[in-house]
């Protein structure tokens, strides 16, 4: 087995989760996902080690590592740092070359990204001033209704009606929710309203950058079926079914970029 020159890693240390992907011969070989702690170096290494362990590899076996996400600036283990916008673009393009538009919903922000056929970013917009449109917001809402985060989307989808939610600030939304419940609105209808409100705000981001098919939904929130459906309605599109866990797309893109860089720097030849 020729170890050298074959393994490339991407490490995405986001605000809520650290993710890693190892590529071997252009194929996804191993992945890792851990919650982000306060120490972003440690979080990144934990995610990377998880993937290395499952692959039976050591860090020295990796030819090139690219770091991304908010933790990328303190990633001494990485050869290079690239922003997650570029990484989500490359990751989505790698899996689905026909994708031209990406919605990334992570823990603390939401990004609208337009890409070309090579996965290069053409335009982007992001929202991080208000919590609506972030995983954190949905987590708080799951807390309000005392339901599991992973079930939130399905509950919203079971709604018979949509109760609009006007607040975008997490704190105000929480109290708005409580007063809606007090008014007798059904939890699933309120949750449905929340998902649609978020989707509308995401549509607003796209009014700046535009939309072109195919559309890809990445980030941890992409696992929320209610969110996916609400976005499809708000943007009037069909979202591509992801081939892997959409939360790993940033790390995958980083690994793809690691492969490209190391080739450019002559560390490896195809």
């Amino acid at each position, binding site marked *: 087995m020729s170890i050298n020159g074959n393994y490339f890693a991407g490490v995405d240390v986001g605000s809520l989760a650290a993710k890693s992907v190892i590529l071997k011969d252009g194929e996804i070989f191993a992945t890792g996902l851990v919650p982000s702690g306060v120490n972003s170096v440690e979080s990144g290494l934990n995610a990377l080690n998880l993937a290395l362990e499952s692959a039976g590899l050591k860090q020295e076996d990796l030819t090139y590592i690219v770091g991304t996400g908010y933790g990328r600036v303190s990633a001494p283990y990485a050869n290079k740092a690239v*922003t997650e*916008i*570029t990484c989500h673009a490359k990751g989505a393009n790698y899996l689905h070359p026909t994708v031209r538009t990406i919605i990334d919903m992570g823990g603390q922000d939401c990004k609208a990204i337009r890409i070309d056929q090579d996965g*290069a*970013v*053409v*335009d982007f917009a992001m929202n991080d*001033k208000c919590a609506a449109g972030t995983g954190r917001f949905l987590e708080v809402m799951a807390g309000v209704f005392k339901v599991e985060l992973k079930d939130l989307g399905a509950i919203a989808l079971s709604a018979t009606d949509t109760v609009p939610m006007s607040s975008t600030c997490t704190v105000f939304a929480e109290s708005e929710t409580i007063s809606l419940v007090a008014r007798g609105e059904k939890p699933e209808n309120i949750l449905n309203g929340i998902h649609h409100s978020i989707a509308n705000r995401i549509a607003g981001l796209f009014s700046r950058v535009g939309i072109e098919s195919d559309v890809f939904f990445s980030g941890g929130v992409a696992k929320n079926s209610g969110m996916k459906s609400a976005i499809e309605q708000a943007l009037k599109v069909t979202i591509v079914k992801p081939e892997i866990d959409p939360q790993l797309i940033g790390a995958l893109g980083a690994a793809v970029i690691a492969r490209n860089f190391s080739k450019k720097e002559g560390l490896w030849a195809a």
Partner: protein
Amino acid sequence: MGKQLFRYSEANKEKFLESDNITFNDGSTVSPEEIWHYLTEEAPAKYPSAFEVNLYQGNRGSRDETLPTSLKTRYLGLTFSARMEKAKDNGKSIAFIQGGQAVDPYTAADTIALRPGLVNQWNNGLEYGNDINKENLRRKKSKEKAFHDMSFEACQTGGYEHVQAGDLRIDVIAPYTVLRCSDISYGVEAHRHGPNKNVKLLNVDYPLRFQADKPWAIEYFAKNLRRLVNTLDEVTGRKTSENDLLKAIKLHNTGRRLGTELAELWWSADVPPTNSDDRASMVSLGNLEVHGDVQASLSVLKEAKKFIAERVKNGVKGHAVADNPKRLFILGSCVGINGSRSEDAGAIVVGRDDQWSHCSSLVEEVGDPFYNLAKATLEYPYEQSIEKRAQWTIEQIKKSRADGVIFIHNWGCNTQAAISRPIVDIIKRETGIPTYIHERDLHGLRDEQEQNRVNAFVEML
């Protein structure tokens, strides 16, 4: 453990010592020897935060060691606070100003005019010995105090908190109102109830925008400029004549001309002759106001032009500039992006609209100087309608051969926030150059989030 501090290398000392003195308003001079001593001995002890080797935080300055005027603008910046204290001790009058004006009338009336950024700089320099963390903490504390005393729905509280608290010896608050700045009302309100509420106040009333071609507006504004000079005279006890204003205009025209020539020289180069911070610090000398000393700015500006010409001729590239960097043009009031971190990401800032707008607008020297200054001010490209401002900006973008445009504005800077989108849309439509709008948050996590966007934009280019 002490933090690692940057040190200017002795290898460059000889060349630096051959450079010119800086001459100040009061006629005093400082020699290159004294500047070198200050930058290598005194300042690192007083302001370790300015020398700390820290990639991600703080103002690390340009650190282009072989460009003597880079060291000199650094010197003027670091000595700013002490120089303002000295000026006050010597009875000089200092005005707090805001808006996008040229400072010719203040110069004429022998008054130092300081904008919010400089007022903050004055206050920042009063405390010695802080590393970056301590300095940031101190600045945040002073902002917290400001939020206690005034509405936080202002851009960055403008530095009024220092005036209000009586921390700085400001003699008069004399901003231009309605000139692109939405913040003035907050500040003016704020100072009314502090210990300094008796500081003299004058709002120089600027006729609503887009009146540049109306004689009544020019007359009206000229009258306000006379009121301004009279108010400044009440503070100083002097009598400023028309001729004093004419002299000030001529002096400032010299600065504006030199600043413009320097910028054009810089643009003419195939490779950027300096990094972003040096370009900005040298071109901005043209308005002769950034260091609170008109003559000092002028003397460094003259020398800077010489050095830049030399670099352009020899194809010298600025310190820490990448090969074939992505050229960014920055739009918006009062804020810019982090030069050195953007250079690390493979970019360079090649121009800005703010300040440049009035640096590149000469004032007519024949006729009533008040009328002429009023006319020039009303014609600043930056203050025109969206379409006109965009067309002027497009010209600057083309001249500077920019690859991308970032419009950045402070949170709470309502005028710029409102017009950023239409301006950028026109630029995009007519040049096809990629654009990005960024709103700077109030203090907090902003550095990292902001840089993240800038880097993503640069990667996109």
